[in-house]
């Protein structure tokens, strides 16, 4: 066993490294989007790629999201592996026509003859004090579209591993980057980055017995913090990080809920019609007889993303989560 040197790295650095390694290994990988070249992207995730691989492989495109994704479709049809960057969550909406009408179903409508290995990187979610249209959680729209994989890392290691797996996937992947975790640091081995696991497995980030918090992306650190705080109340919370919203890992989630008997889904996007509804339904369908209480959700409010000075009231925080955990206990006691 060799000991690996762990160094502090940010999620943004791990993403850059993933892009770089993928481009170096496979000449068909092309990065494209607004400002991804000279500037290195507004979050600097594509920093240095144009310099290292040339502007033909890391391309500043015209400012047109449908055009970016639409031309990526043609490039993928010709055997390239485009990785497109949508600058912010809410600016991906002009590309939805291409995403839903073509990207998600090209494999299916051509009976497998024409898969589209496109990775669509979307910085998403709030908590960075962004002005309007810079903080949306759009995962429910993507999840509702068959033919897309939808993944979102919550750790530095996963940012690398999941992005490599997404680029390697022969299917289109919507890669949601929790922008408020871009600068979160973690010890990680940048010299020998973690192996690329296939998409679709959830992981238990913290084992516990009292209840399961099911979460992903930007809400993972909040849930872990809540689990620590809950110890004072005598609750021992398990935290499951989904990592992949499509496909969904029923196995890991249900195994946890069967152990704990209680489940709470936590995410930033609105609760009504949101991912939590789907997850709660799946858990209820599969674990009903193990449940001591109804599956609860802590989500953002069902409002357009609020202005930054109010966002802390909108985002699920530790108090709201502990409150909900309290209700899980209460249901059990009565």
């Amino acid at each position, binding site marked *: 066993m060799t000991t690996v040197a762990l160094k502090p790295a940010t999620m943004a650095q791990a993403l850059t490294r993933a892009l770089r390694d993928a481009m170096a290994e496979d000449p068909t990988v092309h990065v494209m989007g607004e400002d991804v070249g000279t500037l290195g992207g507004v979050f600097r995730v594509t920093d240095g790629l144009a310099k290292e691989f040339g502007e*033909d492989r890391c391309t500043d*495109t*015209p400012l*047109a999201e*449908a*055009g970016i*994704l*639409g*031309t*990526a*479709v*043609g*490039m*993928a*049809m*010709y*055997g*390239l592996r*485009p990785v497109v960057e949508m600058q912010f969550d809410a600016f991906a909406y*002009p590309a939805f*026509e*291409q995403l839903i*009408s*073509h990207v998600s*179903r*090209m*494999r*299916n*409508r*051509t*009976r*497998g*003859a*024409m*898969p589209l290995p496109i990775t669509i990187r979307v910085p998403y979610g709030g908590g960075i004090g962004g002005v309007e249209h810079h903080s949306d959680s759009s995962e429910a729209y993507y999840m509702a579209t*068959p*033919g897309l*994989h939808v993944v979102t890392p919550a750790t530095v290691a996963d940012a690398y591993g999941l992005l490599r797996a997404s680029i390697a*996937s*022969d*299917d289109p992947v919507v890669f949601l980057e929790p922008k408020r975790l871009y600068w979160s640091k973690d010890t990680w081995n940048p010299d020998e980055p973690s192996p690329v696991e296939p998409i*679709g497995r959830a992981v238990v980030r913290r084992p516990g017995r009292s209840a399961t918090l099911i979460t992903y992306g930007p809400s993972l650190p909040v849930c872990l913090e809540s689990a620590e705080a809950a110890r004072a109340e005598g609750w021992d919370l398990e935290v499951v990080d989904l990592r992949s919203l*499509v*496909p*969904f*890992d*029923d*196995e890991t989630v249900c195994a946890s809920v069967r152990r704990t008997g209680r489940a709470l889904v936590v995410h930033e996007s609105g609760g009504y019609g949101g991912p939590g509804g789907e997850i709660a339904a799946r858990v209820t369908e599969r674990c009903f007889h193990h449940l001591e209480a109804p599956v609860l959700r802590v989500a953002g409010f069902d409002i357009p993303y609020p202005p930054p000075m109010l966002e802390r009231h909108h985002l699920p925080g530790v108090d709201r989560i502990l409150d909900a955990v309290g209700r899980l206990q209460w249901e059990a006691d009565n």
Partner: protein
Amino acid sequence: MTVMEQRGAYRPTPPPAWQPRTDPAPLLPDAAPYRVLGTEAAAQADPALLRRLYAELVRGRRYNAQATALTKQGRLAVYPSTTGQEACEVAAALVLQEQDWLFPSYRDTLAAVARGLDPVQALTLLRGDWHTGYDPREHRIAPLSTPLATQLPHAVGLAHAARLKGDDVVALALVGDGGTSEGDFHEALNFAAVWQAPVVFLVQNNGFAISVPLAKQTAAPSLAHKAVGYGMPGRLVDGNDAAAVHEVLADAVRHAREGGGPTLVEAITYRIEAHTNADDATRYRGDAEVEAWRAHDPIALLEHELTERGLIDEAGIKAARDAAETMAAELRAHMNQDPVLDPMDLFADVYAEPTPQLREQREQLAAELAAEREGTH
């Protein structure tokens, strides 16, 4: 210091000199649609090409008639006819080399067939047994695109990718006059011009987008004029003159192949039939207009030229019609067979590897089908 404070010292300067980035004049389309048939230019046209175009037009007309008949028999769910527009469809197909790509819209089945695609495979979308009944890579024909103009950026991306790889490939994308109002049209043209992608856009201006006439679609002098704003040449052509459409497209394809970048071609033509078999065209246009266009029929135009110049005789015309009849008979025979469909195909090819959720649903359907077979359902 403000301007007021530095009174006397301040001299207003003109803005830095400005020049147009390129000279727009060569990009402008001609004042009238380019024609060959019935003009001096016809003498230069290659007789073999004219005969080939003629045979394909006759076959195309018969194909349109047969497909429309199949809708009446319930064998096709819907058919958007290109009767009257065959010159555009056929020229688009014949102008491409084998390695080139065609990006058709939902109306352009005929272009795909003229490129060599099996007529039955070309019709699966409209018949309803599968969306795309062929391997796009094998034929270098993208799936027929139903959402308007969305195939245009695909053509640009593919052409761009081919050029990056150093391959000699041109993409030709078809779109209707209504489709030019979509954002994707704009974005595709802009990307194509910025990237100098080897792509040709052919707008078939057939007068209507379902019921909406061109006057309500655009205020531009012509659709070809739109090219100038992107920095690519715009060409206007008589869309019923097969020789002219072929020549203009051939020029544009050559220009693209030689690294000259994209061209926007607007072909002025007319949709003789209704939008589809489900549409009632009498609600938005009169007979006189249709009759005027019938008098400018693409087949009659070419047949006249060929006959005048002694390039075809009765026997030649009959041979073209016979070949078209054979194609129609084969198409009928194939389409009259019920397609054999496997419901389990529903779950094939959604992803490279089905998700656990899809596997579960697949099992559910398999069980239902088994129960149905056993009559327990």
